[in-house]
């Protein structure tokens, strides 16, 4: 079991490095731009005032939104999106492919012939997905720690929330993608489905912010669950959203497990 998990981890390590570099790099890059905009912020405020309030709402800069002259507000508007959207994409791709790739490459036939239960096969893969996502967020959190300490006063709560709230969203996407990969084993197809989910949910998030009549949609989209405005203003993730996240992930993983135990695996 130990060797199995280590082997799985090694097999997915290259893509972890690549995605982490992209996510952490983009987040870091946006943070480095902060000093330049901090000085120009008074002009920026004038500039922003010409945009319709709905537009600003999308980026969390609307009424009661984020203050961009502050590093936490700046990151919430300019960097956080990369971590959630691109990190979410990585989570969806990883969740889609970690199991389906074995079936597509037909290597599952080897694994199933070894004395390891399907529960443990699945459990090992889920562990590797969780470790990979946590590692990616850990790298981002280190960058955030440095930048927040340099450009502002470190608020540990906000820093931790910014660092690990995206993990909740990623866990939702990864677990739903994993569940989908039980039914669709062509990894290319299941990856496009999962990416559709990641982008689709983002669009739902925007719609729920723009349209009052569609506000209820915010309960559907994981982007709202870990909203930057709540993190900075309230220094929390709303308990209801936390509960929703945990429930979605639990249900998706349990369903995956039940189905995988009974699945005919023909290669």
């Amino acid at each position, binding site marked *: 079991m130990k060797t199995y998990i280590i082997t799985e981890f090694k097999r997915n390590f290259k893509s972890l490095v690549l995605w982490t570099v992209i996510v952490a790099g983009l987040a870091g890059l946006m943070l480095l731009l902060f000093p330049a905009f901090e000085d120009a912020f008074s002009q920026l405020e004038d500039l922003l005032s010409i945009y319709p309030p709905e537009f600003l709402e999308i980026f969390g800069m609307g009424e009661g939104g984020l203050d961009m002259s502050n590093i936490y507000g700046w990151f919430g508007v300019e960097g956080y999106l990369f971590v959630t959207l691109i990190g979410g994409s990585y989570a969806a791709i990883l969740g889609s492919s970690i199991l389906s790739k074995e079936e597509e490459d037909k290597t599952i036939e080897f694994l199933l*012939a070894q004395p390891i239960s399907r529960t443990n096969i699945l459990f090992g893969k889920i562990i590797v997905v969780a470790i990979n996502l946590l590692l990616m967020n850990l790298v981002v959190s280190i960058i955030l720690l440095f930048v927040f300490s340099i450009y502002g006063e470190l608020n540990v709560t906000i820093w931790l929330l910014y660092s690990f709230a995206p993990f909740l969203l990623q866990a939702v996407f990864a677990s739903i993608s994993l569940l989908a990969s039980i039914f669709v084993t062509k990894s290319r197809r299941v990856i496009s489905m999962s990416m559709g989910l990641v982008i689709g949910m983002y669009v739902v998030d925007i719609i729920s912010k723009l349209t009052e009549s569609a506000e209820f949609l915010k309960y559907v989209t994981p982007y709202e669950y870990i909203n930057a405005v709540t993190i900075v203003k309230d220094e929390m993730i709303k308990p209801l959203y936390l509960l929703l996240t945990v429930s979605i992930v639990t249900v998706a993983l349990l369903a995956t497990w039940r189905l995988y135990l009974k699945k005919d695996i023909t*290669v």
Partner: protein
Amino acid sequence: MIKIDSLTKYYKKNARGILDVSLEIKKGEIFGFIGPNGAGKSTTVRTLLNFIFPTSGSAKIMDLDIINDSVEIRKHIGYIPSEVNFYGDMTVEEFLHYSGSFFEVDYKEKMFALSSRLELDLSRKIEDLSFGNKKKVAIVQALLHSPEILILDEPTSGLDPLMQNTFFTIIEEEKKQGTTIFFSSHILSEVQRICDRVGIIKEGKLIKVESIEDIMNARAKKVRFKAKKDFIFEDDEIVALKRENSHISFVYTGTTEKLLELLSGNGVSDLTIIEPSLEEIFMHFYEKEGK
């Protein structure tokens, strides 16, 4: 050692599975499982290994249920798949260590010994290996933990004749140590070489289980020759009679002497007597079943 009881598997989409297969394999026996492609050989193997679930019926391996005790069973099984698909990015040695890591036994000595006998280059990546070399990796990974049962699904495909020979020697050694072997194949000659008994499967049904001895005794010859068109045969031992242009062919299951008697004085020319193909053997069994 292996007891299969009315095992039935239907696939969705109407693909053929297996129907009511019952079979018992004794400890230390090499059981040949023969049939053409698509007959249900792999379906049977995959059901025994619990890759797929039976629609009805059951099976036990070492008195353990193939579904509920699958993990325990697999501790004692070595499996060579018909199509070898291992992790391409690993080297042969990495992969074999990985394979051995699933078992609580010391596998290293046997792993290296087998690899050198099969002339396997341990440092190469699996994705760079030829079909035959991949098959060698499959052989080593199936045997390295010294399993009590071997399940072999077309194990010799891709191996050159010399390596096939080495493989059969290895299998015979395993048998001497009491290993039970389930040997699925569509090549009659290799089954004849090492098996004690054979089961013949066609269209998902096990149509015959015979000892190799009986098969040898009942072994038919394929006869093909040129003859006059009005040549009429009336003999119970003739099956699968075919006329193609000026040639006539059939499978003859009687004695050679009777065959010569039958042919003489009928203007027969261009005569060949050869081993029948597996399909023709099937015809032999089929027609006998029908009678």
